[in-house]
């Protein structure tokens, strides 16, 4: 069989067009198929997180576990731990507001916190683990121009990476600094509440690895979940309540100085 130039170009053109179309179609097929979780019913859950500041020892296990579980780039964080230090009050010259000294140690607390403050010097010191607050009126999903980030019916705020434009408007809109652009995909990323785990009946990587039980995943739709008992018997607060974001990350023992 002889092939002249015209035939060759025609078949090569057809090949390019067809494989292009086919790969696009295949991509759609793949994108349309969520990860399988056969026994999971979205409408049966409404996820929340409980963080007990009294219990956090700043070991950074949660940050390390999260980085490993979710393949988080080195310089960004889906969860991190902050160390707060409120210097001792000057009794002769009291101030209306004492600004805290805050640091996130090395690598967002992943390496723990080296000793810096002396015990018993009259200062107040504590750790605050941070993560996506899984807001139910989330400002980040409100501003997304294409709806690539959304509130799932089970209360998790998720991102469709195959749809995100990388415009970064949601990063600006999050009051808590939870979002970042993943430099590998040029799309936005943040804590997914380990959605791939919780839909299979597991808890999140950070909760799983917390040695003191400072973090607990809660299902507000499950009447047997101990979170209900905890919320009833403790004084809990969310971060920046004035933002009215409907945050579902509840803190026990949250100091007023925490932002």
């Amino acid at each position: 069989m002889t092939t002249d130039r015209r035939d060759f170009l025609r078949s090569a053109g057809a090949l390019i067009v067809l494989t292009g179309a086919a790969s696009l179609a295949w991509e759609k097929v793949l994108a349309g198929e969520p990860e399988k979780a056969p026994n999971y019913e979205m409408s049966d859950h409404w996820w929340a997180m409980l963080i007990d500041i009294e219990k956090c020892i700043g070991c950074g296990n949660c940050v390390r576990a999260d980085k490993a579980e979710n393949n988080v780039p080195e310089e960004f964080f889906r969860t991190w731990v902050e160390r707060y230090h409120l210097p001792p009050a000057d009794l002769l010259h009291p101030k209306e507001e004492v600004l805290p000294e805050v640091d996130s140690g090395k690598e967002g607390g992943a390496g723990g916190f080296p000793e810096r403050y002396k015990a018993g010097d009259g200062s107040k010191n504590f750790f605050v683990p941070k993560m996506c607050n899984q807001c139910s009126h989330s400002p980040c999903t409100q501003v997304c121009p294409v709806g690539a980030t959304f509130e799932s019916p089970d209360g998790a705020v998720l991102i469709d990476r195959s749809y995100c434009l990388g415009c970064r408007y949601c990063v600006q809109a999050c009051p808590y600094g939870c979002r970042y652009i993943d430099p590998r995909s040029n799309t936005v990323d943040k804590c997914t509440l380990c959605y791939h785990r919780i839909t299979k009946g597991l808890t999140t990587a950070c909760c799983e690895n917390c040695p003191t039980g400072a973090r607990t995943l809660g299902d507000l739709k499950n009447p047997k979940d101990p979170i209900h008992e905890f919320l009833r018997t403790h004084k809990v607060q969310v971060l920046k309540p004035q933002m009215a974001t409907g945050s579902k990350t509840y803190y026990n023992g949250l100091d007023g100085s925490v932002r």
Partner: protein
Amino acid sequence: MESILYGVQGFMYPNEVELQWSILIVLYPFITGLVAGAFILASLERVFNVEAVKPTYRLALLTALSFMLVAPLPLQLHLGHPERSLEMYLTPHTTSAMAMFGFVYLWYLMAVLVLEIWLDYRKDIVLAARATTGWTHKLYRAMALWSDNISERSLEIDDKVGRFITIVGIPSAFLLHGYVGFIFGSIKANPWWSTPLMPIVFLFSAIVSGIVLVMLMYMVVSWVRRTEIDMNCLDTIARYFMYAFIIDFSLEMLDLIHRIYEADESFKSLNFMVHTKLYFSQVILQIIMGTVVPILLLALVQLVNMSAAARKGLYVLSGVLAMVGIFAMRWNVVIGGQLFSKSLLGYTTYKMAFATREGLLPSLLLLALPFVILYVLVRLLPPWPAKPEANEA
């Protein structure tokens, strides 16, 4: 990690250290503002019958179009996935100010600017099509949508429809730039942005910048074409420039005074930022050099009798200062809004690159591009009567 934390003072949330929106996003409100302002100046003649500014009418429209065509480019260049940007039109998220801006932009470009220019130039295009041959003829024929009708009646209709479009165009221009302000002003997470005054401050500074652009363009074009500047026209434009600037300045000061007086939880942090990282660009460039000085210069022209040459000199000076001031204002909003931590406990630094995708070089090219487009447009659709030399001779 140490290198990333360079330039950080106090505490930033760890994801905040790197700025999200670069100088490209500074260009976007700056360029959009020029469009809205130039159009509003053009509409003065058409709707409010300010005859004096007539010599700049067509130039203002073409300037607006040139900048309008460039306005979305910095956004496009900034996206992590530019190839997905069309999704904003195909599957818009209706609660997103950014998605809705896309439609405001399209509406303004297609339904207002292009249509108005087309109607205004239709007669010229048809005449040009008749007078040319070959490719230029085909081009003008296509631009006239293959119509050859320039009867009295059809031109009357053109004029009527054009006037109607300008009337629709004024609120559209307000909407266009007010909307840009809303994109920032509606972000409650950011106390530097979140104020209902933002759209209106953006709008008035846009009007100022557009008027200045057309004023300077008119002077430059007259100089290049060696034609006499119509001083009545220039003085009138300068007066509107001053009025708009006074309103703009009052609004900006209102915003500032309000912030200082309310002194809410963000005040200490923002106040520190204005006195340190933003001191030069906000206090010196934007407020003193870019607003107070040009307003005083313009007021001086009103108060003191001056020669035409002196007035021209002062107009150029105040115009250039105002442009710098308004660019600084966009900079202070966009970049300033990202220099402090949302924890209100720390500050970061913006490190501008040069020859990267979001660096200074592409920004300069993007700023030059509208002038290239304008050159082509002026060639195709001359905004002034043909062959003035012949008339003078």
